């Protein structure tokens, strides 16, 4: 996963590019890294363009990231879910928890138009 800060919005926005898989092998890593990213931003876009696979551990980690972001009055938005990853989100009803966008630029734009809480 690759993290960078987008400063085009009123508040710094964390953009996380998730790569290949988020599963039991690296979900803890995501959660630990997210705790660090939270020191720099409270709003995040998880760009799933390169995400091929997610399991329940990965899903749990992403939901946990959302929970932590909400605690910091921020949000996590998902972008560019592949059909397979989207199916897992639908199956587990996790899709209802997130705002999902077709591309990361759309997700970033949504943070520009909607003022953060």
């Amino acid at each position, binding site marked *: 996963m690759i993290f960078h800060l987008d400063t085009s919005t009123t508040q710094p926005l964390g953009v996380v590019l998730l790569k290949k898989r988020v599963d039991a092998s690296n979900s803890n890593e995501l959660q630990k890294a997210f705790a660090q990213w939270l020191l720099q931003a409270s709003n995040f876009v998880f760009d799933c363009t390169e995400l091929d696979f997610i*399991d*329940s551990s990965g899903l749990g980690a992403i939901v946990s990231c959302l929970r932590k972001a909400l605690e910091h009055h921020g949000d996590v938005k998902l972008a560019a879910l592949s*059909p*397979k990853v989207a*199916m*897992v989100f*639908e*199956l*587990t*009803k996790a899709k209802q928890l997130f705002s999902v966008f077709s591309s990361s630029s759309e997700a970033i734009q949504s943070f520009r138009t909607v003022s953060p809480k």
Partner: protein
Amino acid sequence: MKTLLVIKKQEYEWLIDLFPGVHPLLVPICNKPFIEFLVDFAILAGSDALRIVSDGVLGDVEHYCENGSRWGVEISYGSMRPGDDISTVIDKNRRFCLDGRVIIISGFLFIRYNKKREYASLFASLPTGELLGCPHGSISLAGTSTTKTEAPGTLPFSLAALDSIGKYYELSMEILRTGLTHYVIPGYSSEEDCYIGRNVIIPKSAEIIKPVIIGNNVQIMTNAIIDRNSVIGSNVIIDRESVISGSIVIGNTYIGEHLEVKNKIAAGNLLIDPESGTVIVMEDPHLLTTMTKSKVAGALLRRLVHTLGATFLILLQLFPWLLLRPILGMQGKWKRKKEQYYAERQGKYVTLTSTTIECTGALSAFAKALSLDRFTLLFKVLSGKLALIGNQPRPLNPAIPLLPNSPAGYRPAVFSYAEAEEWPEIGIDTEIVEHYYAVHSDPLKDIAMTQKALFHRTH
């Protein structure tokens, strides 16, 4: 009247990857194998003999249909070359086609019919030649008719090609919504649009909304919802608070808890979106998994590994057991109880002496940490009555019978998978985790799980 069924492998092979382990001609449509619809149609049309011809392997189909005595028809099988056209196939099967009229069904087609209509006299009187055709196949008649009549403008049957998962899904939904009374559908139906098989466990909190078809040996857990337009195959577990809506759950599938399967096909560990054709493979104990029974060789290897593991533990525990057992016995902290439990083999039971160590004091805590309460049970592993790790033995109770042909399998053991995973050792949760490992474990994993169970009991 006879029926010749000609289906080429290339017409159905797209189904092989989507429903692994099921022959495409046996793929269930509303819980009834595809081939059975054709057998029913052939019988309705007055056939007393049916020949299935294909260039693919028909072993599983032969095993399922056998000689057709189940339906009161004679079923035989033939082979063909991939390049053979229909006239070549007829020529190769001329002895079958020689006398009387023959209905020739060519292609991987579903025939829409209505069991309440009269087809035998219709087929006896129809002229020879093609009756119905589509790009994927046709129905035609060969042989001379007893009474010469013109083919009616609209025939009381139609064809539906099965060439994609989307078509398969649409067809299943079409039958479920509008055609259930047109076909013989397996299951008990005391009211319209609702068919339920044998050994179906539906708790009071679960909700079933028709039209729905549920197969045999299905466990629907608490607060689960089987919403309208759903087909649940046999040997399926729908875990608690999951919702199945407008979906097909093929047999031997476990749907994890809190899931929403909407307008999908779940087949083993595959989740298919029929609209887009997207398939995801799930190997996740919390989502959906395939349930398969272990092979004989695997079972033998497992038993060997379990025996070796039990021997090792006996040698390890022998000295502490000889030392602590009499002391704790004298202190009244070593309590034993003889009870009968269900054995692995259906209808059998095993008598076990369960030991409880009262954990008040350093010695009894030490004995418990060493799992000395299981010491005597280890000998049952050597005699093959228990496994080293598996299901928690279930006490014999006529009021709560063990499900026959339980999809999860039941292997009573000294240590349970639930203990290893520190799951609650009672209730549905245990069943789920034990089910998962009963299906997915292998002998090496079993050793690792036994170590985990021992470790968790120590702490």
